[in-house]
């Protein structure tokens, strides 16, 4: 059966002064609808590049990405991106940031009232209704990322792409946001690709963990299916044998089989 999202033998080369640099080599990944997939690897291994190719921001040199039977080769709201540093427009309030996205995606499809409800609904989803009229500079990093997620969700994407969404946050805020994300995921059952370098985050959130080898010419080293029952509770899992087994698998992959040569 044809998979929902098919990253088909993707390679990418970047031109440099010393000839082409092969960042990714033969990345092959099939994702089901509603699956939550994490891509993990050392920094510089090209995990963000994979996401940018799916997002259409980069063009694969070889191979391609097929979403619902159609090849994608340009960015679009069906593959909404949550950027690492939130990337909210600093001159717009939280509400207006989501509004800009909703207005350009649903122009002609939703009435004014429907759009307003849809914006409010998505802000409610990330628990930010109390601060929707604040500028990004007036809210904390975690709140900004919540709005970033609301903006992406409001585009009703077929695939939600998240580029180290919680990487810039402190550990406690990160945990809060992970819990919120799991809550939203239970409700919406989106197809998600998340880039991360946090082992716990990957095991906690994912159905599937894709582990990447080190670059150049990085590729998928191993794929781990996480079969923990949902809903998952952070506290219960802390002492769970199965959870710790998955965790140690990823750690062994990262620090034994594909340890970075230079620290």
């Amino acid at each position, binding site marked *: 059966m044809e998979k929902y999202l098919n990253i088909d033998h993707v390679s990418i080369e970047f031109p440099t002064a010393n000839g082409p640099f092969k960042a990714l080599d033969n990345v092959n990944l099939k994702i089901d609808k509603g699956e939550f997939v994490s891509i993990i690897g050392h920094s510089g291994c090209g995990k963000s590049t994979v996401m940018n190719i799916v997002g259409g*921001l980069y063009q694969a040199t070889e191979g391609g990405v097929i979403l619902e039977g159609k090849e994608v080769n340009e*960015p*679009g709201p069906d593959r909404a*991106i949550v*950027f690492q540093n939130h990337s909210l427009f*600093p001159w717009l309030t939280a509400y207006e940031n989501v509004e800009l996205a909703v207005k*350009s995606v649903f122009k002609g499809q939703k009435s004014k009232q429907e759009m307003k409800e849809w914006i409010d609904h998505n802000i409610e989803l990330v628990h930010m209704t109390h601060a929707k009229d604040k500028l990004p500079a007036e809210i904390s990093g975690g709140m900004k990322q919540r709005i970033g997620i609301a903006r992406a969700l409001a585009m009703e994407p077929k695939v939600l792409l998240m580029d180290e969404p919680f990487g810039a946050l402190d550990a406690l805020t990160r945990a809060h946001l992970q819990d919120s994300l799991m809550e939203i995921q239970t409700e919406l059952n989106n197809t998600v690709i998340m880039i991360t370098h946090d082992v716990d985050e990957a095991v906690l959130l994912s159905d599937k963990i894709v582990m990447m080898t080190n670059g150049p010419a990085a590729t998928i080293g191993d794929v781990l299916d996480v079969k923990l029952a949902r809903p998952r509770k952070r506290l219960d899992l802390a002492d769970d044998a199965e959870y710790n087994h998955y965790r140690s698998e990823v750690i062994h992959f990262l620090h034994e089989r594909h340890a970075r040569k230079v620290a």
Partner: protein
Amino acid sequence: MKDKIINVFEVTGFTWFIPLVKLVTGDSPQQQLQDLAKMVGIPLFAFIVFLGLWHIGAAKVVTSLGQVPGPVQVWEQANVLLDEHNAEREKEHKFYERQEERNAKKLAKNPDAEIKIRPYTGKETYLDQIRTSLITVFVGFVVASLIAIPIGIVSGLSDTLYSAINPLIQIFKPISPLAWLPIVTMVVSAVYVSEDPMFSKAFITSAITVTLCSLWPTLINTAVGVSSIDRDLINVGRVLRLSYITTVFKIVIPSSIPMIFTGLRISLGIGWMVLIAAEMLAQNPGLGKFVWDEFQNGSSNSLSRIMVAVLTIGIIGFLLDRVMLTMQKFFSYDKNAVIR
């Protein structure tokens, strides 16, 4: 109320009024007096020292037009110039009154009589000249901005275009207005031919010279501001599939507003400097021409009158900068940025 007033002073940059406001509303007087001494006392003291040095220094230099004027003579001449302005306005007023009386009599005699009102053609006063200068610099500056901002945006978005126009900018930027003037004068004389010209040629020449010299800072700052936009913000626009025009208006312009205004401020400052030189040569009846005429006139008061003009130019330049600063603060999204 109090916070509102303070906010107004903060936005306009007249921060030295803030302690006064707080003092009046009864905010710990001692702290406010200290702030006041720091913000007003020190500059005031420096200004008085400057006046003293000027007074002593000026008395020591004697030119063919007499002693270099000190603060006292300059103050006197400033008042004379104001009196001359008032006298001239009075004359003008009477001139029109006489005409109206005459016309009224004519109409009383013969209701079908043809009535003419002749414009007053008295000489321009100092305040008229200030007005002319302000209008000229404003026109030149607006034209320059209307050219520079769009080009800056487009070339900031395209590396190719930027490298195409960059050498031209670098070559034209350092050119003195005095070098442009003869060319502009000749071109204006050749091209701007009309039976009933709306503007005088001197005005057009001066304004164009201002435009030519005040284009560059806005252009460069806009291009740099646009090209340094956060890539991710542009990527958000790409994900939303915004059109080029929408991207420019929704993302590019708002995020480069601070840099655009930095450029505009520098441009207006340069434009104001250039204008005085342009008016001298082009004989546009503004402050530049005033200075030149007084220099040619060579009376014993000329130096004082020129000094009045010099100070006027400085103060207006300062006020123009303040206006731009206020607009910059008003339009910038980052209200907390320190802008000087």
